[in-house]
């Protein structure tokens, strides 16, 4: 069978399973006795194995199979959950996710798994015990019969009917499993009454089963008759029929029945939330169309101001309301919870704290805070960096913490919440805080400042130093952080997203990084200006003020033009020069747009202000990616293109 068309689905689903496995493994480490979690892990691993086998990825199948063996032993309590064992399992998860990566790139799963398999096998020394346990659990599964069914079966038996448990195995290569299952059900219906099926009929219809399902059938026919009827259906691999002797077995299992069913029900609930998978490209396309609509609406508004017909005006107002709502709705579709980024951290904290022999609890708040996909894709790396910083530099070792009179276990809080049109993400720890003396010494050592200068610096200025390229206060360079390529990269990234970062720190109390990001990067408020005879847009959030200046207010500092603004000397940027335009310096007064980049300000001279407008950012494309001062382009109401100035790259 050509499996290529399923590859994408396979990859997507495996990623989901790996993610949920990771999550559940972390849960298991905290509650090693919780059988529900083990069941959930087991189920995910099993599904993963089934999918990998169907797609013909042997390494993946083997690895998940071995994992299943180990999990089975945990499930049967023959081995205990130790952190070493968890390490091995987590390594397997890493291997699995690398494998999906390799598969998506090259289409095969060539990945060295021998080491892992060996590790798993050493943990799994009692394989035989495990095997028998599988059998036990199977018979238990197949007899998940509730009281109501038991009643029916008893009645049926008294009238000479027999009850069978039929396990149907469908060929792995079968494309339409649910259709096959439907034929099986039809056939069985003719032979008797189906009282129960595992998984449920709904799930079977939705193809939510691996390659086999079990039904309970009440029938007068003999085993062989049923079997031969079923085997005549094509693509059925195997049929196992067992007669259920109700009296003994059912009573034995009655106590398991309801509890097991209960947990199954819960899981089904969580899986059947109504959603559709949509290709991101389609969403982008929809977004583009909405953007076009907004552009044309703006254009209509322009026409409207010339016309005085009340009918037109009210129609356009209505149109405006609809487009705004439509825009909001589409934006919401594109929103994803920050969970997508956050859920990698529990694992990271666990691994790093083990590596560094620190005790750390991670608390996450507001995982369901929603942010535009474009933002989500970008904030992962900066956050990883801040988290690593907190774990490595922030939180002290348990001994040091005890000496300081703090609890042994350090706490890292990761918070996300909305504030106006922004989303705020906070990373805080209760560690040692930023050591200003160290920062001062480093600044001096690196020759950034003289000894006198260093002494005079305020704490705020010192914090700023941390964001300078090549600055690291860590005494030792570790694998985790401290190479000095850190915070400046974080800052640049966040600023390139039109966001800002702030630090609050207190010695021995901890450090808090506060990141402020716009909800979306696709549509922004902008100020349109004229420079020469060209239109340009400034993102509104990079503008602090617009002022009028006179020619004689320009001063020269070391050959560079500066102006005074609220008592501060700030550089004057003549946009004409930067944009290669001829300047018209004949007028005495000119307009300055004061732009900000972090705490730095600069004045940009422009010829004319056009006004504030909501604009849709469109990329200039790869071909022009070298043009740094232009952040993108937008299409104005009249169809003309205006370029968006990237004020971060102006100075």
């Amino acid at each position, binding site marked *: 069978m050509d499996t290529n068309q399923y590859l994408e689905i396979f990859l997507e689903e495996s990623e989901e399973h790996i993610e949920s496995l990771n999550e559940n493994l972390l849960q298991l480490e905290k509650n090693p006795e919780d059988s529900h979690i083990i069941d959930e892990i087991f189920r995910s691993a099993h599904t993963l194995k089934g999918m990998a086998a169907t797609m013909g990825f042997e390494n993946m199948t083997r690895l998940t199979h071995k994992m299943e063996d180990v999990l089975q032993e945990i499930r049967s309590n023959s081995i205990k959950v130790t952190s070493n064992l968890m390490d091995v399992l987590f390594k397997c998860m890493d291997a699995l996710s690398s494998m999906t990566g390799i598969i998506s790139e090259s289409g095969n799963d060539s990945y060295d798994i021998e080491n892992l398999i060996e590790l798993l096998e050493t943990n799994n020394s009692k394989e035989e015990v495990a095997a028998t346990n599988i059998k036990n659990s199977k018979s238990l599964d197949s007899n998940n019969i509730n009281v109501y069914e038991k009643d029916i079966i008893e009645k049926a038996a008294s009238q000479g009917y027999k009850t069978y448990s039929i396990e149907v195995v469908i060929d792995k290569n079968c494309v339409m499993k649910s259709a096959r299952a439907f034929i099986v059900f039809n056939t069985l219906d003719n032979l008797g009454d189906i009282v129960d099926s595992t998984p449920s009929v709904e799930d079977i219809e939705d193809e939510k089963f691996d390659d086999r399902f079990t039904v309970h059938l009440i029938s007068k026919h003999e085993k062989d008759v049923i079997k031969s009827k079923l085997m005549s259906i094509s693509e059925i691999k195997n049929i196992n029929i067992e007669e259920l002797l109700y009296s003994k077995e059912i009573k034995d299992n009655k106590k398991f029945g309801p509890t097991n069913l209960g947990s199954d029900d819960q899981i089904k609930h969580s899986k059947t939330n109504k959603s559709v998978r949509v290709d991101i490209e389609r969403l982008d396309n929809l977004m*583009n169309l909405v*953007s*076009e609509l907004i*552009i044309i609406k703006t254009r209509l508004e322009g026409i409207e101001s010339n016309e005085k017909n009340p009918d037109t005006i009210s129609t356009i107002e209505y149109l405006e309301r609809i487009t705004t709502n439509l825009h909001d709705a589409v934006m919401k579709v594109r929103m994803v919870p920050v969970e997508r980024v956050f859920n990698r951290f529990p694992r990271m904290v666990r691994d790093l704290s083990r590596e560094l022999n620190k005790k750390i609890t991670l608390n996450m708040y507001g995982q369901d805070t929603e942010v535009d996909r474009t933002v989500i894709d970008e904030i992962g790396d900066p956050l990883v960096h801040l988290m690593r910083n907190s774990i490595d530099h922030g939180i002290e070792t348990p001994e040091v913490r005890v000496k300081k009179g703090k609890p042994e276990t350090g706490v890292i809080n990761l918070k996300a919440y909305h504030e106006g049109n922004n989303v705020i993400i906070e990373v805080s720890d209760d560690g040692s805080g930023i050591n200003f003396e160290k920062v001062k010494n480093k600044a001096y050592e690196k020759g950034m400042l003289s000894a006198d200068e260093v002494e005079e610096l305020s704490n705020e200025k010192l914090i700023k130093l941390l964001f300078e390229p090549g600055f690291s206060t860590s005494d030792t360079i570790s694998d985790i952080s401290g190479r000095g390529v850190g915070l400046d990269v974080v800052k640049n990234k966040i600023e390139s997203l039109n966001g800002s970062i702030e630090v609050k720190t207190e010695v021995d109390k901890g450090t808090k990084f506060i990141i402020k990001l716009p909800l979306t990067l696709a549509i922004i408020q902008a100020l349109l200006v004229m420079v020469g005879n*060209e239109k340009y847009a400034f993102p509104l959030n990079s503008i602090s003020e617009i002022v009028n200046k006179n020619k004689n207010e320009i001063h020269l500092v070391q050959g560079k033009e500066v102006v005074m603004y609220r008592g501060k000397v700030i550089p004057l940027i003549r946009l004409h020069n*930067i*944009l*290669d*335009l001829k300047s018209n310096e004949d007028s005495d007064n000119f307009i300055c747009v004061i732009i900000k980049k972090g705490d730095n300000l600069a004045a940009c001279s422009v010829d004319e202000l056009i006004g504030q407008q909501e604009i849709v950012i*469109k*990329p*200039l*494309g*790869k*071909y*022009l990616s*070298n*043009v*740094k*001062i*232009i952040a*993108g*382009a937008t*299409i104005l109401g009249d*169809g*003309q*293109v*205006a*370029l968006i100035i990237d004020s971060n790259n102006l100075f």
Partner: protein
Amino acid sequence: MSMFVVTRLGSEEYGIEIDKVQSIEKVTKITRVPKAPSFVKGVINLRGEIIPVISLRMLLKLCEVEFDDDTRIVIIKNNDIVIGIIVDNANEVVEIHDDNIDSIDVNSNLYKKESFIGKIGKIGNRILMLFDIDKLTTQQEVKL
């Protein structure tokens, strides 16, 4: 057999593989992009998409001419890069048999080293210079 869109610059004829051509447009308003290389004339709004346009004449170091009614922008799509190239006209599609396509002799002093021409096609006694699209769509001498 391959098909090519024939474009003209003065008396020279150039061919572009037809599957790389997304559309052929009349000249619309071009917005200048500051700090871009000189042969990049700017960007245009093509039905909501922003597309960089380059002057083929400048790129090939020919003298520039005024745009007229025949001037066209050929939109080329190569992988994920979309650009428009300005040509004097584009109104013919030809089929050339593979036997009649020669690769150029790089050592010959006929061709410049920094050439965007990949192959030469022959139709009767017409000679068609065929673009190396990969070269054309990657920025060459971009310095800021």
